[in-house]
């Protein structure tokens, strides 16, 4: 398991990284893929193969003090180029 942070970028167009997870820190649960980059596929281009990570977050990390139950968790699939190491931060 590695601690990772989801990039905070907000580009226009089709990306598969949910807005509510941008900038949040989680741990990688497993690595999948490689899968073609959906940001290429969505516009009719062949997709660059990328690792896909299942990243686990706590509800406290995502929603802060508004979390319904802070220790509940959420997992999502995030493509490698949207993740950066969180340990240096």
């Amino acid at each position, binding site marked *: 398991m590695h601690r990772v942070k989801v990039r905070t970028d907000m580009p226009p167009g089709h990306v598969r990284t949910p807005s509510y997870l941008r900038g949040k820190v989680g741990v990688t649960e497993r690595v*999948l893929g490689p899968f073609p980059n959906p940001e290429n596929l969505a516009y009719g281009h062949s997709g660059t193969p990328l690792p*896909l990570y299942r990243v686990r977050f706590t509800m406290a990390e995502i*929603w802060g003090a508004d979390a*319904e139950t802070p220790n*509940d*968790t959420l*997992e*999502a*699939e995030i493509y490698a180029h949207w993740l950066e190491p969180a340990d240096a931060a």
Partner: protein
Amino acid sequence: MPHDHADHLSPSGHPYRPDDDHPLSYWQTLEIAVRELLVEKEITTAADIAEQIDAMDARNPTMGAQVVARYWTEPEFATALLADGAKATREMGFDIGPMKLIALPNRPDLHNIVVCTLCSCYPRNLLGLPPDWYKSRAYRSRTVREPRKVLAEFGVTLPESTEVRVHDSTADMRYIVIPNRPARTEGLDQAALAALVTRDSMIGTGIARTP
């Protein structure tokens, strides 16, 4: 002749909504035009379209229920399903196409629930088409923020000691929840166990029935 489903019952056992005698809508006009152009251009055929509809109609939650019942009763299958959900499911004889599947076993201290906030990703090739609520704005918006309130609306109330884990189906994988096996089902065979496994229990908005 276009494929006619008028005699069939839907997977829920109801007749299909009659759509032949309602005023033609703009979007229905578009569907007919697109379909006929694709056939004229020999990109597909009327028979292929009919066959695809039949294949989708044949998929329904009883397929997933058989997977769950086998998980409960055969430890070797359970291991194989966790290692590669799609492979283990295909080996049961289910035609799930290219779908990649991850099985999410519940435990007494862990309850899994699946949502797709970005669209409506669903293990359709195993469970059939998703229910309307799964595609609704309310379910997609709220499940990631207040899953316990959403679960309560479905009649599922969990103690604080049970962790709720939401799976946002954001990319290439599809998910099936393995509900906890109900108590006092030791003597039941796989068919009887499968009958306890509801669609919602495999999405995570329900639990398995008790016999």
